């Protein structure tokens, strides 16, 4: 889009993001523009405010309004054992190598409401590796994190959970990992115990540890190219040589300099290995 035909709305969105960055430190400026545009407009509609100018005013002055907006502009869909084939590949191809590490650190970047982290935990339990594992699950959205920490999901998720789990080659009885009560399922303590949830912004915050596996699934798709490269750089920095990067099912790495440092390990499942 050239400057000349940037719509007024687009300008407003840009200004809003600029304002958010200046006021709250969250930086959405380099997110994929069209997606961000849609998200902001959706947030505007939900807020009931007449126009973006008003929204911007609110967001600048009112923390709660900002939180709401933040809530709206992040997309937090997730699911237990989402993409069973991926977990199958993880189990069959990656886990044997993970066994050779006496301590495992796994980072779930953009964990949303936590399902992915719990999925990983269950898988590691099934593979007998959980005792030596530490899962770091981070997200930008505080609200998503709250939910993630609770580890309680509607019981209506259960059927999909079951089929996905079976599809991933899961062997254990799910009932031993979750408590089904009322119309909710809750993750049991032995699943939760080695997961550490905390707030972390992939855009602004730094790398915090050397990981053996980094899951960053369905997060990079919201980022613009440049940002994607920057974030991938961080992910690379936080992987030990030979560590694994797992992307979403529809995501693939290209051939920029950073991207080339990841070698396809299970290419069709977007599992890469960091070989600097």
């Amino acid at each position, binding site marked *: 889009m050239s400057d000349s035909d940037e719509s007024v709305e687009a300008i407003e969105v840009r200004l809003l993001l600029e304002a958010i960055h200046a006021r709250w430190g969250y930086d959405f400026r380099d997110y994929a523009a069209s997606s961000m545009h849609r998200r902001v407009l959706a947030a505007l509609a939900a807020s009931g405010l007449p126009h973006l100018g008003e929204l911007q005013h609110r967001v600048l002055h009112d923390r709660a309004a900002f939180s709401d907006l933040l809530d709206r502009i992040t997309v937090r869909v997730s699911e237990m054992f989402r993409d069973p084939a991926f977990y199958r590949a993880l189990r069959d191809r990656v886990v044997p190598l993970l066994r050779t590490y*006496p301590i495992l650190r796994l980072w779930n970047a953009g964990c949303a409401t936590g399902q992915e982290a719990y999925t990983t935990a269950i898988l590691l339990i099934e593979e007998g590796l959980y005792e030596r594992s530490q899962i*770091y699950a981070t997200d930008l959205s505080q609200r998503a994190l709250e939910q993630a920490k609770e580890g309680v999901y509607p019981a209506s998720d259960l059927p999909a959970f079951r089929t996905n789990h079976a599809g991933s080659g899961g062997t254990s009885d799910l009932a031993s990992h979750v408590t089904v009560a009322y119309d909710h399922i809750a993750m049991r303590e032995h699943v939760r115990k080695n997961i550490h949830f905390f707030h972390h*912004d992939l855009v*602004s915050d730094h790398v915090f*540890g050397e990981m053996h596996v980094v899951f960053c699934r369905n997060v990079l*798709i919201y980022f613009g190219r440049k940002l994607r490269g920057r974030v991938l750089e961080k992910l690379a920095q936080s992987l030990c040589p030979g560590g694994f990067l797992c992307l979403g099912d529809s995501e693939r790495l290209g051939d920029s300099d950073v991207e080339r440092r990841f070698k396809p390990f299970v290419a069709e499942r977007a599992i890469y290995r960091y*070989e*600097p």
Partner: protein
Amino acid sequence: MRLTLRASLIAIVSIMAAAFLVVIVASDLVTSRVRERLVEIEQRQIPRLELGPRIAADFAELTRTFQDAVAAQDADALEQTRRVRDRIVARLEEGKAVFDPAASEELRVALDAYHELALDVSRRMIAGEGGEEMIERITRMQEAQARAQAQIDRVVAFDARYLRGAFDDARAALLAGGRTRLVITGTCLALVLGLAIVFTRGFVRSIAALHEGFARFGKGELDALIPVRGNDEIADVAAGANQMAKNLAELEAERERAAAETRELLERTREQAARLQAQEEELRATNEELQAQQEELRLTNEELSEHARQLSEQRAELEAKNEELRELSRRLEQKAAELATVSAFKSQFLANMSHELRTPLNSMLLLSQLLADNPEGNLTPKQVEYARTVNGAGKDLLFLINQVLDLAKIEAGRQEIHVEPVRVEDIVERIRRVFAPLAAEKGLSFDVGIADDVPRSITTDGQRVGQILTNLVGNAVKFTSRGAVKLAVRRPDPSVELRTLRRETTIAFVVTDTGSGIASEHRERIFEPFEQGGEAGNRRHGGTGLGLAISRELATLLGGELRLESTAAEGSTFVCYLPERCERTEKTEEPRRAATPAPKRAATPAPVARDGGAAPDDATHLLVIEDDPLFLEVLGRIIGERGLSWLAARDGATGLRLARERRPRGIILDVELPDIDGWRVMEALRADPATASIPVHFVSATDAPDRGLALGAVGYLTKPAAKKDLVRVVESLGRQRAHRVLVVESDASRGQTLAEQLATLEVETTVVKSAREALDVLEKKSFACMIVDLSVPDIEELELLEILQRRAAASQDTPAVVLYTDRPPSRSEAMRFESYASVVLDEGASTDRLLDEVRLFLRRLEAGMPRRPTPNQSVGVRLEGKKLLVVDDDMRTVYALSAALRAKGAEVLVAENGAVALEMLDANPDVDAVVMDVMMPEMDGYEATRRIRAQPRFERLPIVSLTAKAMKGDAERSIEAGASAYLPKPIDADALLSLLHSFFTGEEKA
């Protein structure tokens, strides 16, 4: 007024109480009447029943007493009677109430009368009176007695009728009382019952109504209201219930509405969700597609621009090619002509050689040999020498002929050379012997000389050198008609720039003549086959025209070069530069180059070598950044002697560029340099990832080894330096380090297997059996990587690791350590190991990962990536005697920090999370400072900091908080939690060191 339930109940109860009271009072009344009767009976009749007999008895006693007294004639005893009488009177008095008063009065009178009479009679009888009168008296007395007796009987007579009457009375009273009571009780009961019934009926009915109502409500019939009767509490309840029901009904309706709304909302949400989902999917798809499209577009763009670029390039190229083609065709024509000549010459020449020259030459050789042998001894020594000369020349000629015959071979690059040590003198002597006579014959002087600094013997192919010199001197003699021909062997002139050779190891064979010289326009072509110094004009001198071409190729073949350094009309100087030691490796390469006739090469000026000595392209071993040429020369010799190639840079900028481009194994660096000084060069080297891991050794007249080492140099040598020290520096830097792997494995077969597997990575593997051996080996050689089996018995692994880490802190020259074990270490053990090395768990299946680890590591080394950050600037920081606690779950940070801190002399404790840190602090309250990561599992840094601060003994303990968080407010959170300072991750060791330093110095001052 409202009749409340309470009031009703109170009323009923009080009425009942009143009725009860009435009943009680009534029955009491009745009873008291009966009692009265009975009391009367008791009081009247019973005493009468008692007193009567007593009075009768007393009277009898009275009578008896009289009789006794009379009988006893005892008058005194009569007094007794009075007492008895008084007793009777007393009894009468006593019974006054019960006796009929009149009767009792009469009795008394009668008694008194009797007593009087009896007393009188008795006295008289005692006195003995008798007579009528007496009898009369007695009769009167007896009458009185009878009267009294009668009176007594009357008085005491028990009135049974009366008694019966009294009892009847009482019974009647009782009966009447009973009846009255019954009536009253009955009435009361009836009253109470009636009242109760009246009340309860209403009550029960209300309750029933309530009950029913509730039941109905319960069933959900909220509109069927409970009838409200009366004005009591139940009515209230009913009213309340009705109200409630009404509310409920409303609520229900509300709920119904809400539910409906919710349902609808849900429905809509679901729809929306579905739509969203769809949209999302679509979006994702579109996104991906877009992405892909973008990618494609980008690709196409790139391709397009690439195409465009290529096109224009191609056009340019085409143009150039055309040009070249034209040039080429021109040249080709020329060449074709030449070739024609050449082949003509060649074939003719070959023919001549083979048939006509060989035969006479052959006999000439034989004969001259015979002559030189001087079998008859009749030749003078001079003659013998001549004969030898003839023979030698013949041999050379034959040799030359053979060479020519082998020309094809030379040009095809199949020429062989035989390198061996030869004495320079021998070569020169042969030439002298051949040409001295020739020169003498032409009247020329012929001098040969060998300079003093030329080694006696060199390693090369003596025959070829002879051939070259024969040619050169031959030409010189040939083309010189006056003056002198000189052959000098010496070192190259300093002014000469050599292309590939190093001056110090090069020998120049200089052939000078005073001939016609060679015109500059011919100089290019002089070395081409079948060319001679002066075109046809020179043809008369005869010769093959091959000499210079062959000589040049031969010189190249021997690793040297042949140059013409002369000007026309002043004679020519040909110089053949040859290395002292002809490198065999070049043999295989050079022939191919030799095969390509490279006419232009002679003219191409040698590249301006800013480097003091040039090295073969890609194998630069050492880089010397040094501006003193003399010292460079010395160093160069030392390096060269060790078979190492090297480059020199005269200034810092060049040094940096060469280091980046060539990535030498090591760098020798001076401090005083013309442009940027050595310190800054060092910093720049460390800052650039491409050069950061290259070991640097300072050799400088500036005496500041501390500074150098602090900057990360592997060593520091002050000038003037002894040769042996320089040798040591060169050797240590020049060692091949990237590909040596040390395996510490006590199980021989396992070690063997590992070594074999490592061989596939093209590394040189050394296997030792124990940690002690390992340390020994490490002293002698340097290794890139070290694989340690954790079950090696003889030394505590950690101790080995600690030694290594301490060494690593001091220099870069320490291998990366990979530990492997088939026994899973405990978590804390593993954490500890990880702060020193990478650990591989060998669970039977894969040594793959082990190899991977080594492979990846070596690759990183080759890519010039530093193994870990080294603190650069914190030169003055000293942490000796300080005890520091590093709290972080990221072992990489722990590794880097603890190495940096230990390097500064601190004792470092490590904790993997806040909880452990608190325990450690408890056990080590003497810790001087804490470096605390914020984001950790179990207990995070904020919490841990807060808890530490909560203990008064740690109130002033410096705590440096590390965090990856960079958002607004994150720093404040650390400080709020009680941290003394805050540093962002990735951690800059220098910043941390200086921060700690400032804490401690501040502390000392305080």
